[in-house]
């Protein structure tokens, strides 16, 4: 079974530029998550999708971050414009059922550096 795929693995941008991350979850998984992991901290949930609908985006900075899940499968997370404090690893995870208490399967993450 293929795992959660993310690209790119690394990205370096200047502040005020835009960036997009892509995630392909495990086939058939209903729930998809985007987390932000700042160095030295635990992952913080940005947005949670169930199928192609958003169920929690309470911690997503909506003035600069956006996310969509296409046809309930792949997802993209965009930052526009980026700030220095957005430097972090962005993790995508998926779970089979429509609930966060199921085991979450994580991708390797995208490390973003904003200069």
């Amino acid at each position, binding site marked *: 079974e293929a795992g959660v795929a993310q690209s790119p693995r690394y990205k370096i941008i200047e502040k005020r530029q835009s960036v997009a991350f892509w995630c392909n979850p495990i086939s058939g998984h209903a729930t998809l998550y985007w987390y932000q992991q700042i160095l030295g901290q*635990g*992952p913080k949930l940005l947005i949670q999708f169930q199928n192609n609908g958003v*169920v929690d985006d309470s911690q997503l900075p909506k003035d600069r971050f956006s996310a969509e899940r296409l046809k309930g499968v792949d997802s993209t997370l965009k930052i526009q414009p980026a700030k220095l404090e957005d430097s972090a690893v962005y993790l995508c995870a998926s779970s089979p059922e429509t*609930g*966060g208490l199921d*085991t*979450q399967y994580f991708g*390797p993450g995208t490390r973003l550096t904003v200069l």
Partner: protein
Amino acid sequence: AQSVTQPDIHITVSEGASLELRCNYSYGATPYLFWYVQSPGQGLQLLLKYFSGDTLVQGIKGFEAEFKRSQSSFNLRKPSVHWSDAAEYFCAVGELTSYDKVIFGPGTSLSVIP
């Protein structure tokens, strides 16, 4: 609000020694608890989880954790550490809502001395 604390930022143990990583949670009802491990350059992987029943939970890679309601703790243990166990360990608590949600602790970094 639900929260998770991991008092130890970094721990160093010798290979073959026993290990205990501490985790304390704040949650009003019966918690759903998890331990995840993050090896360098890799995503998080579930080690074990507790939902109900036996308070001693067995996981993968020889890890176990014990739920102690009176202490609001869910400590992770391993009797003999291997060099490959060097990683970041995250405790997490599940929050029951209409869609459910997991809140992660800050993590404990484990170094293993050969």
